[in-house]
């Protein structure tokens, strides 16, 4: 998805104004005439200047670019589904890994991503299990990262 630069500029200006308003509520450092609001305000000012230039250039461009240019993949339902399922798989892991435990949540998430990338189910299932176990071995076993056990806590080692 490619947005017109002018549109991006407008969005950035709206964002910068909100930023300026919010930053104005930061307290100054004691005894100084400035504080934590300086950098965010400078950033907002910079963004507004850049956005104005972007809008100006977009208006002058000929031929004008469409407001939104959709990429080829957006018209292929299979690819849109694949894109969405990769994001959903990671979101699923974020939401449920604590409760389900790594050893349940990770293979499930990985399976979805493998299928989304076009690996056949027959190969995906063993691959998801093996890779998840391998990563568990490296991070939990060797690097001592506290990957969650969740439902499997009774079997924790």
């Amino acid at each position: 998805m490619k947005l017109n630069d002018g549109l991006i500029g407008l969005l950035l200006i709206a964002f910068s104004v909100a930023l300026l308003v919010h930053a104005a509520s930061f307290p100054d450092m004691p005894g100084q005439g400035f504080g934590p609001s300086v950098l965010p305000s400078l950033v907002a000012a910079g963004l507004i200047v850049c956005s104005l230039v972007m809008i100006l250039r977009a208006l002058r461009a000929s031929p004008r670019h469409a407001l939104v240019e959709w990429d080829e993949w957006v018209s292929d339902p299979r690819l849109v589904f694949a894109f969405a399922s990769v994001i959903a798989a990671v979101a699923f892991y974020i939401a449920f890994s604590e409760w389900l435990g790594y050893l349940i949540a990770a293979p499930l998430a990985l399976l979805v991503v493998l299928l989304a990338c076009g690996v056949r189910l027959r190969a995906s299932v063993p691959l998801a299990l093996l890779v998840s176990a391998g990563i568990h071995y490296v991070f939990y076993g060797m690097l001592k990262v506290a990957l969650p056990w969740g439902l499997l806590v009774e079997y924790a080692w």
Partner: protein
Amino acid sequence: MESIALAFSLVADPYVLGVILAASLFGLFVGAIPGLTATMATALLVPVTFFMPPVPAVAAIVSCTAMAIFSGDIPGALLRMPGTPASAAYTDEAYSMTRKGQAELVLGAGLVFSAIGGLLGTLVLVTAAPALAEVALNFSSFEYFWLVLLGLTCAVFIASDRPLKGFVSLLLGLLLATVGMNNPAAHPRFTFGSDNLLGGISFIPLMVGMFAVSEVLRFVVASSESRLTLAQERFGNVFAGQWALMRKYPLAIFRGSAVGTAIGALPGAGADIAAWISYAISKKFSKTPEKFGTGHIEGVVESGAANNGALSGAWIPALVFGIPGDSITAIAIGVLYMKGMNPGPTIFLNNPENIYAVFIVFFLANLLMLPLGLLAIKLYKQILRVPRRALMPVILAFCMVGAFAINNTAFDIAVMLVAGVAAFFMERNGFPIAPLILGVVLGPMFEENFATSLIKAEGSWLAFFERPIAAALGLVTVTVWLSPFALRILRRRQHG
């Protein structure tokens, strides 16, 4: 002297040597696969290095990236697809040579002159960094303020072909750096009541998202995996003829390494830009510029040396000032801070043995490149057999656990996911990622030195120019800012 001996013993540790070997093989593999970059290799490596002592952690990054930048040449020559962006400048040239039956010569040249460029760049690093550090010891917040500002400026003007969008990226990076309580007044900014954000946005998950997850997303929507057909599968002696090349193009090799190192040392400009510029320079000064583009080795020799020289050069400002020379050293600086090896001139005073050990690793990695690189060329057909559609999901799984591992919180995986999706859309809309990363790394340093200087200056802006080095740095910075306007006026005069 004592610390040099200590440094050798640090590197000679079997554990460190093992890490170097493993990271090298990993780097060769990642670089050799089109679509996976050296920066991505670093981002994937960092969650693992997090659990290592400082010397092996930095050694892993140094050896992995050196190998990845070389092995990016292999698919360039055999598939006409650069393995990493740093090889893009001469991919067509290298592929034309393969088509002419000179695959061995061009692959060997990539290998040998990558190693030479890396070694010469390291020599500059080893001599320049301590000398610069001596000078930098006297720096006050004013000098650092200008230095950081100059670094940020370079990132926008030199490192990106679209300065305006690069500037927007940079500003967004600076803004991301302001999240949390890490500011002069310890006021919680943009935390929206979340405890997870009080300490700021974790750098490593952000990095992993921007450089690895975005790449996975790009792969998922790339309609179908094209079948990759190698232009040549078996290779003879790739070292044959390299000595003759060295005698034929000594100046080009030297120039490529020097230009590469210098460009690498500029903040924000890394190996890919070094290769493009060196290729152009090589063509300009060549006795036979008309042969460029038809399968001529000269440009490959010069820019192949340049991109590896740039890797070493990027560490000069990173170690001495804490200002990254490219996105790889930006990640490395994050690692240095986590390991308590805070970059800055005092790093040469406080733990010199660690720094010398890093230097030794640089030499070692570039020498190790010769045998391991040869192996990668010989086994390339097998490397390419690994199906990318299975590899990408595995990388994603690794990213999730890696992002989690830094703080043991699922919140960081969310940071990674959002960063990945954001980077995916930013790239599609022409906003470069490197300036954003630089903004995140330099944001806190910029704010701290700005605040300190403002307090010291007591409201007088002249104070920013009172110390001689600060004044010079300030002048250069302002000149770079004004240069686009000056150029435009000049052009108009010429036309008018």
